[in-house]
């Protein structure tokens, strides 16, 4: 509510203190006006001068000052628990027996007649104009976290620098086009295969450390998080029952690790169609207009006040989040309900939301997490929960905590020279920041002969080039790519071969045309000489044969088997 609206809603002698414009004027030390209009005008003038608000704040007794601080620090979301806790701290007793009151009403009930704080809550709430002033005056909420010692019965997942697993995931999907379930997750069989090939640590939502025991991919915490991030950043896409490489893959995979993490994180943050609630069993947003990206930005702000490089207890973080901005998600997502329809509170919603959020960050290498197991409050089944976490240096970089990484984001980033083209037509792609991008490009059409931690090798062959042509990659494009990114000069024989292939690639084509047919060549010649006809005729079909439409594929294969490129231009 804006200040003007609040003031206009107040009465000169309202029933409650915070509805009483006369009392507000008194609290502000403004001369009591005779009309409501004058009172509003006087108060607007009062609020316009920030020093008046500051003076009012400085003159508050300690209890009220603490309440104002807590309210501002929480983003105007102080709750009754906090009000009562502060009242108890200051020995203030609530004499009123009113129930179902707002936290601010509760606060005024505690005040027992004092009205100084009324200045900050005209019509029972702190208007944005006052909040903006107060934010500058009140001390920020201190994020204080105790030292955390990991316990042996918990599972630690440390993933600093493992964003490349997501690049590997994209390559895997590119190679296998695995089937996906309705929620875009690859099938469990593929997820297990990929996780085994990649060799990272994961655990089930049940807390089991062997992901083979997961009922589905969604239950594999890190794997499913990687898939969510890859989908959100368009690194991969899922459609018609299978996953494939996404339109943004080339760009993302060409980025250095820290930049890749940043890009994926930002893409996730902006993904309007993804809901963290889909990762929490039984929850859904009541509103169809839930703004998930906004909630993520608020969560990011909360997290950016945490220290990096050391483990902090999730419980303490959660308490901090509650104090700092307990409405961070609810404000944008709206009410969240359980399957059977009742609205859930912080424990079931925001706390779980933060767990999902940290799991995603962990998958990205932005956070390391320590997981323990407990029995679920609802089902009694075993469930994993985050006991503690720490922001990694790349996490700090992305969240802007550590002052940024030496590598700066660059929209026009291009792969660096990262491979060698040998005269024997082998392409060796060495481990480097650009490896994933080059691998992705070559794997679209070339045969991979070696894949090792340190190197991938491909063979440039006729068959590979034919595949490239089929998928719309011209031989000229390949030649340009090789010349541009090869660390060593392109061998002359390879370059010559590419020129030859390029020359030969357009010579045979199967294409759809309309023909005018004549019984014999004389008749055709006669038609050609007819007035007004010659202009309408295209090239006379020379070396061409009619083929059955069903034989196109067979014909193309047969021609290519004989060492000639054949383009399908249908």
């Amino acid at each position, binding site marked *: 509510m804006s200040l003007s609206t609040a003031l206009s809603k107040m009465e000169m002698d309202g029933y409650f203190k915070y509805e009483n414009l006369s009392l507000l004027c008194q609290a502000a030390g403004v001369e009591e006006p005779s009309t409501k209009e004058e009172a509003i005008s006087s108060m607007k003038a009062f609020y316009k001068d920030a020093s008046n608000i500051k003076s009012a704040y400085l003159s508050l007794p300690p209890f009220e000052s603490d309440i104002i601080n807590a309210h501002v620090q929480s983003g105007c979301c102080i709750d009754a628990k906090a009000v009562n806790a502060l009242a108890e701290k200051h020995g203030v007793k609530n004499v009123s027996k009113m129930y179902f009151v707002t936290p601010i009403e509760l606060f005024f009930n505690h005040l027992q007649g004092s009205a100084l704080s009324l200045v900050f809550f005209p019509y029972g709430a702190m208007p944005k104009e006052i909040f903006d002033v107060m934010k500058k005056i009140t001390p920020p909420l201190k994020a204080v976290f105790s030292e955390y010692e990991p316990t042996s019965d918990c599972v630690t997942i440390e993933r600093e620098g493992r964003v490349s697993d997501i690049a590997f995931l994209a390559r895997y999907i590119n190679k296998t086009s695995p089937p996906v379930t309705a929620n875009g997750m690859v099938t469990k069989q593929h997820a297990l295969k990929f996780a085994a090939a990649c060799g990272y640590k994961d655990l089930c939502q049940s807390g089991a450390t062997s992901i083979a025991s997961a009922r589905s991919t969604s239950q594999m915490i890190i794997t499913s998080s990687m898939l969510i991030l890859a989908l959100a950043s368009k690194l991969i896409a899922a459609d018609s029952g299978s996953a494939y490489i996404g339109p943004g893959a080339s760009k993302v995979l060409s980025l250095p690790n820290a930049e890749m993490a940043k890009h994926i994180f930002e893409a996730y943050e902006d993904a309007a169609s993804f809901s963290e609630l889909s990762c929490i069993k039984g929850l859904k947003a009541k509103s169809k207009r839930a703004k998930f990206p906004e909630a993520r930005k608020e969560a990011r702000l909360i997290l950016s006040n945490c220290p990096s490089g050391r483990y902090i207890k999730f419980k303490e973080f959660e308490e901090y989040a509650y104090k700092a901005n307990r409405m961070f998600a609810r404000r944008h997502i709206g009410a969240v309900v359980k399957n059977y329809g009742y609205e859930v509170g912080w424990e079931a919603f925001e706390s779980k939301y933060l767990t999902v959020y940290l799991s995603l960050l962990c998958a990205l290498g932005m956070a390391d997490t320590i997981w323990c197991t407990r029995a679920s409050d609802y089902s009694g089944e075993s469930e994993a929960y985050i006991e503690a976490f720490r922001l990694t240096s790349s996490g700090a970089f992305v969240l802007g905590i550590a002052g940024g990484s030496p590598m700066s984001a660059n929209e026009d980033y291009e792969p660096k020279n990262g491979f060698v083209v040998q005269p024997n037509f082998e392409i*060796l792609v060495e481990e480097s920041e650009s490896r994933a991008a080059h691998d992705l490009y070559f794997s679209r059409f070339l045969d991979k002969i070696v894949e*090792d*931690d340190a190197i991938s090798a491909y063979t440039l062959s006729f068959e590979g080039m034919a595949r490239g042509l089929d998928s719309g990659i011209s031989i000229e494009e390949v030649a340009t790519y090789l010349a541009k990114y090869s660390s060593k000069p392109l*061998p002359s024989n390879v370059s*010559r071969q590419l020129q030859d292939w390029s020359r030969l690639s357009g010579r045979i084509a199967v294409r759809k045309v309309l023909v005018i047919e004549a019984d014999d060549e004389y008749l055709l010649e006669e038609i050609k000489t007819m007035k007004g006809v010659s202009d309408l005729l295209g090239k006379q079909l020379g070396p061409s044969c009619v083929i059955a439409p069903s034989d196109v594929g067979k014909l193309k294969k047969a021609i290519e088997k004989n060492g000639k490129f054949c383009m399908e231009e249908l």
Partner: protein
Amino acid sequence: MSGPLIVQGDMTLLLEVGHPDFETARDEINAFSEIVKSPEYMHTYRMTPLSLWNAASAGISADGALGALEAHAKHAVPENVKTRVRQIIERYGSVEIDKDDEGLFLTAKDEFTMALINADEKASSYFLSPPEGLKVRIDGHYRGHLKQALMDLQLPAQDHAGFGEAAPLTIGLRESCASSGSPFSLRGYQQEAVDLFYASGKAHGGHGVIVLPCGAGKTIVGMGAMEKVSAETLVLTTSITAVRQWIAELLDKTSLTEDLIGEYSGEIKQIRPVTISTYQILSHRNAQGDNAHFSLFDERNWGLIIYDEVHMLPAPVFRMTAELQSKRRLGLTATLVREDDRQSDVFALIGPKRCEVPWKSLEEKGFIAKAKCSEIRIPLPVDMKMAYATSDKKDKFRIASENPDKMHVIKLLLEKHKDGNILIIGQYISQLKAIAAELEAPIITGSLANKKRELLYSSFKRGDTPVLVVSKVANFAIDLPDANVAIEVSGTFGSRQEEAQRLGRILRPKEGDNEAHFYALVTKDSREEDFAGNRQLFLIEQGYPYEILEVADISV
């Protein structure tokens, strides 16, 4: 880590040629791995049990090999590689064969190894008695067979049993060549190879393989070994032409006289203190299916058997060699790779690799010529295109191979290399005859009598015949020291050795710029290009620079 070497989990090694530490790394890894391919930028090596056992036999430990890998690696050496290298190298020396007054005996390093051998039906069949602890008496006649059986168990034996008494023969190396009078001595690497083989006459030496590239003087290393051993010697080689070449070389560079050297071939059956024969005649079976010429091995008390081009050693000779373990044995080859993958038999029966010199280092030092390979693509004449288009695959290849426009290019190349000694090599006799007639050059084909061939070779050597047209008979072991240009007008992609041998004809060092040129004439956009592609790949992987030219690119 910023070395030139990438160690892969599958035991292959990739070595970056342009790296400043390339040469050091190459020389070190060459001792325990074998080169697979060496194209321009990155060379591929592979560590195999044999390459590691060869290294172990040369005294390289697992720590030494792994130390070299780690010193030159760009990334961390995979753990599985470390484990495997250790396991393999430690197997070498787990079994030893020795001799005492009672005869030969085998010693295993532990009970487990002895149990393993004893449990093997084949290996234990050569025992004379049950094992006593870690020691067992073995039948000396089957020393080679036992070593083969042990190889099958992945237990390479160290053979310290030594050699029997042989008929002595004084063989000296001349200080100057008898034919030309030019000074003669072993080059440093040749002397080193001889010394490593002979090992000062100790029992652990005297058997093994020397790997030298074509043109590096393997025959001369053989002669050096003969001088050291100074005993009657049997030399086995690949063809009658090679037999005569050996004889000519021995007469030219050693103190041996004609009466001491015998040729044992299909044409002549001389058995003298030094006898040169072919694998072919030794493998020959008579009507009863017996190897009638195996008796050659027993005709004299040979002190040394030299296996020239040991990678060509045929199976029957392997069998015979298994029974010749008390003779000194020297294998000479340009490559340990065998088409039949029987490298382990070479290791067990001839011996481990004693020395290998990379051809690149010899080229750098000028000991072999720098070869430039070019493929020239020649369009098919327009009037032949329809015939080509309507032919089947086989005929297409033939039409393309015999493209008449190649003649024009041959003439251009002859003009370009007018002072050169030029070999024109081809597959089709009719084509070669036409070329020979057009150029008025002599031609050597399989049907030409050996004597006439020798005359033509001599004339070519003297420079009286600058251009010689040859069919594939010239592929093996002819020595044409002054050939500096080879023009291949037609050919099939045969075995890997055949291609290497063909190029080998021009690799011997040249006076002046020490360059040799290998041209392959190929019909453009034809099936011949596919075969040329295979050849291109092979030569590139051998490390030769290879360029593709159009006719217009030839500058005269």
